[in-house]
């Protein structure tokens, strides 16, 4: 049975169809929440909210997009809402012990680097969601644009900026980021435009 058929049945009140939809898409929805949330506990709560949002909204789902796309959008928004609610609460700050002044060895520096779970929450939400949908779910830009209701070009630039944030957060000691290295593409402000100009 296709998702479309299950949706039609679920909208008519068929519990088995609704359950099948949730079972089928649970892993993907959880994966979105897990990456957006950054830890298991928040992901579990966010995923629960996402599933509830899907169930509550199934009656209004109009089949203009696929159920998969729609459920991903619902889940993404539910996760972000859940995290916004949590973010409003002050976080207790624990004083860190004084850092050792000796230069850490390479292994220490590696272990000091943030994990992806720590890094993702540090990038702005508007960049995080498209990066997660691209790299976790494997959506193409058009699907992400549809899911997040953005222009495809905006998706493209947000993914790029999100990745730049992540690259800088994950490995801040890498000296050759884009700001420190001049691209031959960018020697002139309009270089890209010049290159794209059709030959005359």
């Amino acid at each position: 049975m296709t998702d479309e058929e299950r949706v039609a049945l679920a909208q008519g009140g068929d519990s088995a169809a609704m359950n099948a939809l949730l079972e089928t898409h649970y892993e993907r929805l959880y994966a979105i929440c897990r990456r957006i949330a950054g830890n298991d506990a928040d992901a579990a709560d966010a995923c629960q909210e996402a599933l509830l949002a899907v169930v509550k909204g199934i009656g209004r789902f109009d089949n203009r997009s696929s159920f998969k796309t729609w459920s991903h959008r619902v889940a993404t928004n539910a996760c972000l809402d859940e995290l916004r609610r949590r973010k409003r609460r002050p976080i207790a700050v624990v004083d860190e012990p004084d850092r050792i002044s000796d230069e850490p060895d390479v292994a220490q520096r590696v272990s000091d680097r943030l994990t992806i779970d720590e890094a993702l929450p540090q990038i702005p939400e508007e960049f995080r969601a498209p990066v997660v949908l691209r790299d976790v779910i494997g959506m193409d830009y058009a699907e992400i644009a549809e899911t997040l209701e953005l222009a495809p070009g905006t998706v493209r630039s947000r993914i790029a900026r999100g990745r730049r944030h992540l690259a800088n957060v994950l490995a801040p000691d890498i000296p050759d980021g884009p700001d420190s290295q001049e691209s031959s593409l960018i020697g002139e402000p309009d270089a890209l435009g010049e290159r794209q100009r059709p030959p005359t």
Partner: protein
Amino acid sequence: MTDPSDFNPRDDGTSPSDAERADELASAFVDGEATADEIILIENDPTSAERIAQFNTVTSAVSAPITPPPAAIRAAHLAAAMAEFEENKSIDLTTSASPATAGSSAEPASNKPAEPVIDLTAARESRAASPAKAERSNRWLMSAAAALLVVGGIGFASSRLGGSDDADIAADFAGADDAGDEETSASNAEGATEALQAEAMGESDDEAMEDDAMEEESAMEESAGSGAMEDEEAMEEGEESADVAAADADTEESSDPNRSSVFVEAPLVAAFEATTINELFEQATLLEPLPLEESLCAADLAIVDGYWVPVESIDGEIGELIVQISPDGEAIPILVDAACTVIAE
């Protein structure tokens, strides 16, 4: 096909920097979304390889396998969602089914009312039998040992503080007292509430406030009785220990500098403990009621007459206590969570 000369402006309308343009090309290349022209550009750019390597590293990290949740969590998630589905289904069938649609189980959504009006009487009956209700209710109305923390007077605070978001204030306040922490134990919740009580109300006000509460209680007892939740009996024991406290904005100033930074002009928040919906309702009557137009949930529940106050559960979830006034003047308290799901009536 994307024209690489047509790079997207930033969200603030400014043009991307050259580095951002190069990043965008490299990122699109990594995703296989670069056009043929862009691929030529990238291949001729000596710095592209570095960017692509960085982005490949990032992509690998983000796309690393995710450990699925334990089977018990997954099962709980699905069970709660299905309970919600059954709940909504029974409400929908009760209220919106017609001879033309009730017989078709595969009726597409487009043929249904987009926003069905919920019959609260039917909703109460269906929810009373719902296993999900007890589970969600417990997050809000627990035993006396894990009492509900109510934050009120927010609308007043908002107006005094120049349009601050209600939920922000409530959440900040609760967080400052550790009441919003998921790890908060029951005793911590009580302690936070007691601390609030101590600050928000002077001893001399205490008795007077309790008297007021008693009067309100007796006045509201009959009208609220019909909406009692099924958990009420199990929670009766805790009722007696539930305290009532309210801020007196005119007479008491907070001495805590941290708190005064949130509530600049006066202590505007009251902390309550409640173990039943009626108890919560009785205490909430001490707060300044907010108009339904400012409620996020009243419209969803088709409530047109009444008032509401913001509430926060012990795990920090912001909700609303909506008091519906029926045509015959009966006050019916309805507790909803942030998603406007009815927790208790």
